[in-house]
């Protein structure tokens, strides 16, 4: 059967791999002797290499941001709402790049990769990576692709933090930074959620201090719990009520008085947790949540985010969502305020949406509208 894809999808895509043999010194003090990144690209790089946009993924994201890997794919990439012909990241105009972050579990060097020193999977021996390290590794990918300067670096949540870090660390290589549903650092409550998720994983009997892979097992229950907890925080109360209410599973109209799945929301969470176990690595989850916890650019500048951002020359678009309680609008406003303090060019939109933190993945009309309009300006600048 000939595969057909929606006209505004990038369609069939294939991941690529880049090998970086030179050592990479990490913020934690350790050095990776070399590394690999798996990435996807959509659209065409123009002759001046001026129309490239880097998309940074969030906690559990991958390089597969848009399109389909095979005609049988049930779902497209994670940011299908925003990447494609005519979409905010218009692939008729931009060359969009998204890589699986270092430390990830979808092909880039990470805990599931073989440690060249031992011939065994890294597992817990994989060094801690930070948002800063990701930016450094992504800069090598830019070199590899012949991209001197990104027209924009964009991301939601943890991806937005990477966009901010790009603007701070490599100001000459980024024209616009787009931070969506992000925060300048985690709150104690955010870190607390991450810690519960980590403890769920680390206390699973199958965790084996992170060496589960060489024993041929996975800390299934812990990872599932971590994801269930995460999911609760990504949705809003209203979104959950709307989606599930107190509905019992189809076909039932009374309580069974047991602990098996009864409510729809239980069924949903278990499904999310179980399917996550199939596609994600526990050590990577630990690493990524730690990278989130550690992100705090203001700390090195006496707590002043404005001073941390002083080196930035990019123009900024900051977007938040009204029902996001994980990174609420007030957190985005901290970023905006820091930029205003030193008169940096910034546009800020607070999008009315009741999907919670996950709204950045959704086709919310007002969100797509502002994002698209902004990116059209960016495209006009680079004559894309």
């Amino acid at each position, binding site marked *: 059967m000939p595969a057909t894809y929606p006209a505004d999808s990038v369609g069939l895509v294939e991941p690529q791999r880049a090998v970086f043999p030179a050592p990479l010194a990490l913020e934690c003090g350790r050095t990776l002797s070399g590394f690999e990144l798996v990435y996807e690209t959509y659209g065409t790089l123009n002759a001046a290499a001026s129309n490239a946009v880097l998309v940074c993924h969030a906690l559990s994201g991958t390089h597969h941001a848009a399109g389909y890997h095979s005609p049988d794919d049930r779902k497209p990439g994670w940011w299908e709402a925003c990447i494609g012909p005519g979409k905010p990241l218009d692939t008729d105009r931009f060359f969009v790049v998204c890589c699986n972050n270092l430390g990830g579990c979808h092909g880039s060097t990470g805990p599931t990769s073989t440690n060249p020193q031992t011939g065994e999977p890294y597992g817990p021996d994989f060094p801690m990576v930070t948002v800063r390290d990701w930016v450094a590794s992504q800069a090598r990918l830019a070199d590899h692709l012949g991209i001197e300067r990104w027209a924009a670096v964009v991301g939601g949540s943890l991806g937005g933090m990477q966009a901010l870090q790009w603007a701070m660390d490599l100001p000459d290589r980024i024209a616009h930074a787009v931070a969506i549903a992000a925060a300048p650092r985690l709150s104690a409550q955010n870190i607390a959620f991450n810690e519960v998720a980590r403890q769920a994983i680390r206390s699973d009997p199958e965790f084996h201090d992170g060496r589960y892979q060489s024993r041929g097992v996975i800390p299934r229950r812990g990872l599932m719990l971590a994801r269930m907890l995460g999911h609760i925080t990504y949705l809003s109360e209203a979104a959950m009520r709307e989606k599930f209410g107190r509905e019992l599973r189809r076909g039932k109209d009374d309580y069974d008085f047991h602990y098996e799945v009864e409510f729809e929301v239980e069924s949903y969470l278990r499904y999310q947790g179980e399917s996550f176990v199939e596609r994600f690595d526990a050590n990577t989850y630990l690493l990524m949540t730690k990278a989130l916890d550690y992100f705090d650019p203001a700390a090195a500048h006496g707590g002043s985010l404005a001073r941390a951002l002083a080196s930035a020359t990019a123009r900024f678009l900051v977007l938040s969502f009204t029902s996001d309680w994980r990174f609420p609008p007030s957190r985005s*406003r901290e970023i905006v*305020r820091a930029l*205003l303090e030193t008169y940096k*060019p910034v*546009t800020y939109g607070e999008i009315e949406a009741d999907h919670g933190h996950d709204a950045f993945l959704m086709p919310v009309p007002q969100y797509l509208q*502002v994002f698209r309009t*902004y990116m059209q300006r960016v495209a006009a600048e680079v004559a894309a």
Partner: protein
Amino acid sequence: MTGLRRDLQIVADWIGSGSRVLDLGCGDGHLLRHLYESRNVTGYGLEIDPEQISESVANGVNVIQTDLDQGLSDFEAEAFDHVVMTQTLQAVQRPDRLLLEMLRVGREGIVTFPNFAYWRLRYYLAILGRMPMSGALAYAWYETPNIHLCTIHDFEELCRELGIRIIERRVLSHELKPPRLGGLLPNLLAEVALYRFRRA
């Protein structure tokens, strides 16, 4: 870019080249865009309406989604040379507080508003017995965002009370034309009033 509305042209002429400007209720951002392009001005627009924000973005304006009724706490004192508010004063909850906020974050304030004592509005109420409408007040009573309409007398009295020094006043009569009687009887003949002011 061509054709700034006459009232906005007067505002633009009050703004020095290279200034830092904050435009409260910037709408589609065309005043700021004009200032960016013609006067090398830098600055931001504040706007609450999502549609208008998109328009501002399309105009290349740095626009911050903000509810002016929450004040200007995102901004430091004396961050701007000019804080501008065109045709918005009458739509905020506490115009008095916002005027003071304008002079906290800016060296100079500029406001324009529809003069509620304009003779056509008086005619509406006095003779027709109906809530006034005009070009500058283009809403029916039940849907108007304008909750604090005032007259030239009222505004100047408020400025006196708040210790605000008016530097310059301009008025425009019907359809934003210069007043025929050269600004005589402004409270009666001005449809729109424009002010520059500072801290006393």
